[in-house]
């Protein structure tokens, strides 16, 4: 018997873009929704753009913002470049920065807002320091110029430890206990789905190459406003890490978010909304 069920669709479009990044052709998966001010969202290390699905589906946001989320190469539905099988993936400050600039250019975005979480939160600090004229505003979630490591990344990619399971188990404690189980498990699923060594390769930027402590003093928030929001349960990028970074940046707008951890947009979308809507409202008002 034929089912009478009718599918409902979310107002998100997903497409594959062909563009050159770091001199190599790439097939990049990009989702977007809404119209208005471009808002580019950068996912965390070892995950993918699904983390921002609630932002893409939020009509209050998409009424004023064109929300754009891409899976970084090697992540989600974006493929690694040809020849990847003989390489060790390593994200660097230079390659990550250029990737975001190139994606914004290729999509012909006019002074977008960039909101990045974790490694994305670190990256926006580099954008603020080196390319403030390119952006309307920058939002760092779980963002700091540097933070203390808490495990050896060699555990993330070896044959006697399941990569997906250990990545998820490590980050599971970075979420707030108040976050709904359904959302916490969805967040962990993305870590379980990551390719071998990809989380580790992203953390090369975070741990080794991307220490921005020397650089952040030059950030001028008069040229590009900077918002930093960190969850109180994030023990990887702690509220103190964010506050210490912000103390060196005149005009940085800091919010410590209650009952949230390292993945605010996906671990508890309703709670995160309380904090991000006022920020987006401020950016819109200044435009």
């Amino acid at each position, binding site marked *: 018997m034929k089912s009478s069920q009718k599918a409902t669709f979310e107002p998100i479009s997903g497409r594959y873009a062909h563009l050159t990044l770091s001199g190599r052709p790439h097939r990049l998966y990009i989702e977007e929704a809404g119209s208005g001010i471009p808002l580019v969202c950068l996912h965390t290390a070892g995950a993918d753009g699904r983390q921002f699905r609630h932002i893409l589906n939020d009509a209050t946001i998409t009424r004023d913002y064109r929300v754009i989320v891409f899976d970084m190469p090697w992540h989600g539905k974006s493929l690694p470049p040809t020849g990847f099988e003989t390489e060790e993936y390593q994200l660097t400050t230079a390659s990550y920065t250029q990737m975001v600039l190139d994606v914004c250019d290729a999509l012909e975005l006019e002074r977008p807002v960039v909101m990045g979480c974790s490694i994305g939160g670190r990256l926006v600090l580099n954008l603020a320091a080196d390319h403030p004229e390119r952006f309307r505003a920058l939002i760092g979630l779980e963002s700091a110029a540097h933070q*203390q490591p*808490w*495990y050896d990344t060699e*555990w993330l990619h070896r044959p*006697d*430890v*399941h990569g997906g*399971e*250990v990545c*998820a*188990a*490590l980050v*599971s*404690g*970075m979420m*707030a*206990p*108040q976050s709904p189980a359904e959302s916490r498990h969805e967040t962990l699923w993305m870590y379980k789905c990551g390719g071998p060594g990809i989380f580790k390769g992203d953390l090369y930027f975070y741990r080794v190459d991307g220490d921005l402590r020397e650089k952040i003093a030059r950030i001028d928030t008069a040229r590009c406003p900077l918002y930093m929001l960190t969850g*109180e*349960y994030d*023990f990887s990028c*702690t509220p103190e890490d964010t506050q210490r970074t912000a103390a060196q940046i005149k005009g940085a707008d800091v919010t410590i978010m209650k009952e949230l951890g390292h993945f605010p947009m996906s671990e508890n979308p309703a709670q995160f909304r309380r904090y991000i809507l006022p920020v987006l409202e401020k950016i819109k008002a200044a435009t």
Partner: protein
Amino acid sequence: MTAEANTDRVIALFERLPALVEANVDLVKRGRFLSTDFALVVGATPLLVRVEAGRVTSVARGPFLLRPWTFSITATPETWLKLLKPVPDPGTHDLMALSKVGLARIEGNLQTFMANLQVIKDIVTAPRALM
């Protein structure tokens, strides 16, 4: 509470692990590949936890004479009580958070620990159900 009373309280909680884990069908299923002896050290008192195919089959109170274990997790009774709160506070809500700031020490054969990390974290925090 005195340190001694806290130690006794934490030990009493961990001694309930066999029944607590047994009652959690999902945890037993996820842990079915794990069989090991590990130590939970409460202050200076070690507890030897035996896991067989995901089930906690015994919790023995030390001190022990030359008894081996695969890995150990050491914290003060006060730290264990913070971790075991039903809704723990930021910073003491996860074993790795405690380890990062030196409130817990994780030592020994860490391959077993890391390969079964979520299951081990869930076994150790199972007494939250009693708090």
